[in-house]
């Protein structure tokens, strides 16, 4: 039995469980699958990996399929994919626990398939398999987006369009790559390989590269309470995996990553919907990873892997806490929340742990991973990007570390007295919070995480996060940002309704920045409206034309008389004769 289960990718277990869940009418049965299937997958993938390790290699390749003459490798577990597989399966369990109260068949089914597709894509050994899971990921997740209600439908459509586009680019790139190099194997590709640019673009869409990132802030905050938590884990982190696998050391990514860390800061500070703030900060964290991949040294790649693990935990934790607030209060808008710590103390505590982790306080999750990437950046002498990452770190503290918990749980009292979150949500948040703290624990905690990392660095070169200079440097950075918060406290004397806007380094700059952003936004809005009208006219016209031509009453589809058809046949004969004579 075990041998049978170990003969194919664990992702199929999850996908199968997802299909099964669609047919199970009993809600406890479905919930059992939601937690049981990822647990089984987690156990299996580690057993497979350990078995390979016992036979002396650190790579397991199997799960071959033959489709249309191409041999597909659906199971490749090596140190890199092992890290992602573990954290994906673990996140699947956490999501299962968090969603325990929800009685929605569609979410259960698509969450399981989505998790399975994520794990399957990570274990894909060739580009065609990657493409198939890539598309499955998009298709299964869009149903989760659609669970968010009416407003989420158009967002889901836009989301789907982006991801199908990404899949098409991936397929095109894979075909060109396969044709030119003779192999579809998914290893280091590099931007100069045939089809490399297409593949980079395909990965870039999913990773939220600047200007390709809008789907994240568009779709994620509009999903349901549990939906957003589930969505935040897989899609973008899979893209990071694909980049780390295929494009490690591509210099362009350093700058792309730098820009990705900085620009969401401004938007996040201005945003009112706290789940949208978190979506922006998701983008910002991805920037750290992309920049780390761009460096491509063992230290940087280890940092990326570590940051993915920790980020899934603390970003999941933050989304969960906001989900709990949304679940109890019915809104996650900063202007309508405040003072919730009185009745939701545990949620507040967990949210603060998540906020501390994302801001990279020493002893908390983000510190041990982010400092690796920043240190690697410094070692490779990319000082401009280094400075951008520092600025972004401070910005993270500002919008995710302070803004989110402050407006939700403290701030002015909104008078709302919701109940504490349901026990299953608390449990899921508690587990995530525990790992946020445990994996950063200086005496025996962070070493566990570092042992998971793909590149073995031992002895002198081994990275140690808790050195005096690291800690002091980080504390200086955080204290500087805290100073801004102190200023904020003073501005807290201002009338309460303006409070929502006073949360930045400097009042004047903020005002200026806000106005510039507002102006850009207005112009953008106008331009967008004009373009939309233009497109509407154009596509409306095209649609009408198409209808006129092809509908049953249209010119093309009218029931043509037999004589007409006979004339067509004669025309075809004439064309064929002419062609045959002239060739």
């Amino acid at each position, binding site marked *: 039995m075990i041998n049978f289960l170990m003969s194919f990718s664990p992702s199929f277990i999850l996908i199968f469980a997802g299909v099964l869940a669609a047919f199970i009418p009993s809600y406890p049965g479905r919930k059992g699958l939601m937690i049981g299937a990822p647990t089984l997958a987690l156990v299996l993938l580690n057993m497979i990996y350990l078995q390979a390790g016992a036979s002396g290699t650190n790579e397991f390749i199997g799960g071959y399929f033959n489709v249309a003459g191409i041999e597909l490798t659906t199971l490749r577990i090596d140190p890199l994919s092992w890290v992602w597989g573990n954290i994906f399966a673990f996140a699947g369990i956490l999501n299962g626990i968090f969603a325990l109260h929800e009685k929605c068949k569609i979410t259960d089914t698509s969450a399981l398939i989505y998790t399975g597709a994520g794990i399957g894509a990570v274990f894909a050994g060739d580009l065609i398999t990657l493409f198939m899971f890539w598309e499955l990921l998009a298709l299964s997740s869009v149903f989760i987006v659609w669970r968010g209600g009416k407003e989420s439908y158009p967002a889901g459509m836009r989301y789907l369009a982006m991801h199908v586009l990404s899949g098409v680019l991936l397929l*095109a790139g894979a075909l060109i790559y396969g044709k030119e190099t003779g192999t579809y194997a998914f290893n280091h590709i590099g931007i100069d390989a045939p089809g490399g640019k297409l593949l980079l673009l395909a990965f870039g869409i999913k990773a939220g590269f600047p200007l390709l990132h809008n789907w994240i802030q568009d779709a994620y905050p509009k999903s349901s309470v549990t939906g957003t938590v589930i969505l935040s884990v897989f899609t973008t982190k899979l893209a990071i995996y694909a980049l780390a696998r295929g494009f490690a050391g591509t210099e362009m990514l350093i700058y792309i990553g730098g820009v990705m860390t900085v620009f969401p800061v401004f938007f996040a500070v201005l945003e009112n919907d706290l789940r949208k703030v978190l979506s922006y900060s998701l983008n910002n964290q991805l920037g750290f990873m992309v920049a780390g991949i761009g460096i491509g040294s063992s230290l940087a790649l280890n940092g990326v892997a570590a940051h993915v693990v920790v980020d899934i935990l603390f970003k999941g934790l933050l989304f969960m806490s906001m989900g709990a607030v949304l679940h109890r209060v019915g809104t996650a808008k900063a202007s309508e929340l405040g003072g919730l710590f009185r009745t939701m103390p545990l949620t507040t505590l967990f949210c603060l742990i998540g906020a501390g982790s994302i801001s990279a306080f020493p002893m908390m999750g983000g510190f041990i991973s982010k400092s690796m990437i920043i240190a690697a950046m410094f070692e490779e002498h990319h000082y401009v990007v280094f400075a951008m990452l520092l600025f972004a770190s401070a910005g993270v503290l500002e919008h995710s570390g302070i803004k989110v918990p402050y407006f939700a749980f403290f701030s002015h009292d909104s008078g709302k007295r919701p109940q504490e979150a349901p026990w299953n949500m608390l449990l899921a948040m508690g587990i995530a919070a525990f790992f946020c703290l445990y994996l950063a624990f200086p005496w025996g905690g962070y070493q566990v995480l570092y042992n998971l990392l793909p590149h073995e660095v031992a002895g002198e070169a081994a990275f140690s996060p808790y050195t005096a200079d690291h800690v002091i440097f980080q504390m200086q950075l955080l204290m500087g940002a805290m100073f801004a918060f102190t200023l904020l406290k003073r501005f807290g004397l201002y009338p309460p309704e303006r409070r929502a806007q006073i949360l930045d380094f400097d009042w004047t700059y903020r005002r200026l920045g806000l106005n510039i952003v507002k102006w850009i936004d207005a112009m953008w809005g106008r331009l967008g409206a004009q373009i939309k009208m233009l497109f509407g006219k154009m596509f409306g016209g095209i649609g009408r034309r198409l209808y006129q*031509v092809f509908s049953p009453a249209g010119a093309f589809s009218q029931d043509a008389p037999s004589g007409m058809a006979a004339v067509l046949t004669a025309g075809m004969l004439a064309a064929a004769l002419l*062609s045959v004579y002239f060739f």
Partner: protein
Amino acid sequence: MSSISHILPSWVLTHGPALLVVLPLLMAVLVALLPSKNTGAEKIAWMAVLSTAIICAFIAFGILGQVVSHGPVKYAMGGWEPPIGIGYYIDALSAPILLLITLIAVLCTLYALPSVVAEIEPKKRSPFYAAFLVSFAGLLGMVATGDAFNVFVFLEVSSLSTYVLVAMGASRDRRALTSAYKYLMMGSIGATFFVIGIGFLYMQTGTLNMMDIARILQDVGPDSRVVKLAFVFIVVGLGLKLAMFPLHTWLPGAYAYAPSFVTAFLAATATKAALYLLLRFGFTVFDPSWTFISKFFMYLLAGAGILGMLIASLQAIFQNDIRRVLAFSSVAQVGYMLLGIGMTTTLGLTAGYLHMLNHAMMKGALFLAVGAFWYRFGITQVSDMRGLGKTMPLTMAGFTIAGLSLIGVPGTAGFVSKLALVRAAAENGWWWAVGVIVVTSILAIIYIGRLIEQAYFQPAPKQGAATVAKNEAPMIMLIPLWILALSALVFGIDAEWTTGLAEAAAHVLEGGPILNTPPLSGGH
């Protein structure tokens, strides 16, 4: 497969090629003679058709096994050796089509029992079954024979009976009559063109046996105008029969108004048999290495394929009648096959042939499901499909699987053949064709998605105060539907067998004209 040849007595296999044609013809006469007043007669007729189809399927299986293990099967009708008598010739190109036709016939016949009762007037039922047997025999004959004029005869045998079958839909919808008339007109033009082409060939070569024609044509060479004329007439004539765009105008009407069971059978087999003939003549009688033929394939055939894929897919999007949606989609799918054939490379031919096999499965399943919708609720329009996911869940699930396969979702048979086609186009450097395949796949998502959306996301219609109750199709209709739908899944996950068959067929085509005569295996 060899185990099946052991089940059958050896003489069945020895005379298999002849039995395939003769048995349905003889049974057709018997069925036609059954008394039509007696209600038990139709049951007997149905049993006769079913048993004939099953026996033919076994024979076709046996022949395929023989072809795979021992190479082409030759048979001299009545013991008269060709070129004096009529020779039958079955190789890796034709054997899978024979098996396909017989298997689809078995499944459709199973389905026919309730469906014919609902759609055909009682006294016409036995003749209806007889006409079906004649059409079945004609299709098998077209594929099995190695004699060019015999092809024409069987083409007419199957076509004439098909016109009758389509016209029988009149008791359901009177428009079947005009559709059948139009089909008759166009089909006759096609057959006439074909026979004119055969006439030219006879004029040039003095023989009707395909292998002899091929051998003599090699001596004549590509410059003869008569040969060119013969080629054009034959290809255009067959183009009409296989619904090549823009000669497809007969198809939507015929598919939309024929009885359900006839539509499913025709959609899965008739155009495939005509396409087989195009391959047979274009590659193994004429020489595809001749410039005018290779250019014709590349420009006209692939061009017509591309146009058909785009325009017919667009037309399918805007149709109101479900069966017309599927009929236009058939024209588009024929375009895919023609595109693959037009490449004339190994990969292209494999992909075209594979798509032909896969398309038969999924389109058969789709039409069977639509027939079941009509059987239970009288549904013909797209807008009437609302709530079918609730009212006929099993039928609709089968429909959905086949529909996904038609779109080409990974894990289904349609994906395998579309991927093969994309690879073939990429290998050929036809990047525009890859683009067109992607675009038409998106169009397929729209026209199939429209139907699925109606069924699953719209509420079921109300009947008075209550919603319409669940009313699943009878088991005997569901079984064939699900066999086809599941095969579309199975061959999507493990495509080794179908791909192998397609590769063997492509190998035959690549060999060019078949000149040498392998030793006879039958006849006296």
